[in-house]
């Protein structure tokens, strides 16, 4: 489809240019969430935005998703400026936000259904992603009846089932216990390697960032901008106890600590 896709040269797929965002404060004046925010994401790259809590990571994702628009500057995805939400940008949210009135299957097939895909076809597709996140057998369960980890799996399957070109993940594992979190990270890597997408993953957990990322952007506190950039070339699947892993962990932790 695109000429640039030939060969191994990856082009800048998402471009954030001079992005600044402000909100009116409760009392008066403006609260600046981000300024001078510049970064690009390559096609099929797994980019992790890493920064302290409340630093505006979610705001960046919300702007790329199109829920909020930058006060100034621009965000383009595949050459198109973001002007609102769209089906080509899927999101996995921080807390599970499954529709409680629908079953697991109902939630996963929701995207294709909204776009008018026929029942047989969308069921088949939904089943594929339900299997991919390891939830076969739970198709007819309602969200209230399944665990937090399973809910996030459904959230991931639901986002994938709509086949977006960009996957935005807002601390999807932040509310899970440590054990489940490791498991989900492993599974997410497997899914990503099978179904490549451009992923922007937000986290405040350094190990998670290192385990998943092709590249890590370290963000500053509000107003947030890119403080440092790390390309992670460790082979996958990564080992949390690998000396190189630990060295990077220490290095990046120090950078972040200075910003606090």
């Amino acid at each position: 489809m695109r000429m640039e896709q030939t060969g191994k040269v990856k082009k800048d797929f998402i471009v954030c240019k001079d992005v600044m965002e402000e909100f009116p404060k409760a009392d008066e004046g403006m609260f600046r969430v981000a300024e001078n925010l510049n970064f690009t994401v390559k096609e099929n790259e797994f980019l992790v935005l890493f920064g302290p809590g409340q630093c505006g990571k979610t705001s960046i994702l919300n702007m790329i998703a199109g829920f909020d628009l930058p006060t100034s500057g621009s965000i383009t995805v595949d050459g198109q400026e973001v002007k609102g939400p769209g089906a080509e940008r899927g999101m996995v949210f921080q807390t599970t936000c499954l529709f409680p009135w629908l079953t697991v299957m109902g939630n996963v097939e929701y995207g294709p259904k909204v776009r008018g895909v026929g029942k047989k076809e969308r069921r088949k597709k939904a089943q594929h992603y339900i299997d991919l996140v390891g939830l076969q057998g739970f198709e007819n369960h309602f969200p209230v009846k399944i665990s937090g980890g399973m809910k996030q799996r459904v959230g991931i399957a639901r986002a994938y089932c709509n086949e977006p070109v960009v996957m935005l993940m807002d601390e999807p594992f932040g509310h899970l216990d440590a054990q489940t979190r490791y498991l989900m990270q492993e599974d997410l890597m497997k899914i990503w390697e099978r179904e490549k997408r451009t992923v922007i993953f937000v986290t405040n957990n350094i190990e998670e960032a290192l385990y998943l990322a092709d590249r890590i952007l370290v963000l500053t506190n509000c107003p947030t901008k890119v403080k440092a950039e790390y390309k992670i070339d460790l082979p996958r699947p990564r080992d949390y106890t690998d000396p190189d892993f630990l060295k990077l962990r220490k290095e990046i932790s120090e950078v972040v600590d200075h910003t606090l």
Partner: protein
Amino acid sequence: MQKKKSKYLWILSAVTVVFVLFIWWLVTDGLGIFTSNTLPSPIKIVQAFIKKLTDPNPDGATLGAHLLSSLKIVLSGYLLGVVIGIPMGIVMAWYEKADLMIRPVFDMIRTVPGIAWVPVMVVFCGIGFTSKAIVIFIGAVVANVINAYSGIKQTKQVHLWVGATFGASNWQLLTKIALPSAFPMIINGLKLSLGGAWTTIVAAELLASNRGIGYMIQQARGILRPDIIIVGMFVIGIVGSLLMLPISLLEKKVMKGGKW
């Protein structure tokens, strides 16, 4: 274990009912503390009930005829109120312009309690069917508008975002996300307004009527027939709870996955 336990729990309720009936019998026929002219015994109530089924004395109609008259008014006013109130609440919550247009009139109407409409309606339409049906209708519209409105307004932003990332249209966001979100509140409105309608009809019939359960009670009071008054009260209670049944069934059917 739990199933075995709940199987016999109804005995507790049965014991209470039997106990209350026994005390009632004891203070009336048993020990003669109250005479039939003040508090008739349970046996006399049953006798009065059976007699009233076929005997139009002393108020000109049988129990069935009174009940039918009350039910006709309640159901016509209530159903019309539901059919108009729920869509109105939804439209007001979803389209700001509709809200601005309807709200001034609605706010004036909602603060007047149902029963306060009776005098003016009697002046307009007499003491028959129409005046009371309109009063019931007003009460039902108000409760259903308020509940449908709050239900839609309480739709989680994140759910709407999910819909937006799936490319849902405004209409799909309303029908496929906001409406199911609002369902528990809408059911709540249905229940509240039905209770309100049933209360209002009895009160309205006490004030102005020539037929109906409230009228029957009022007439019995005039000629000192406490047995008929109490029969009327039981009928109100039992029919009122029977009317709730279809709503509870609907609630169970739609919310089979648990509450949200």
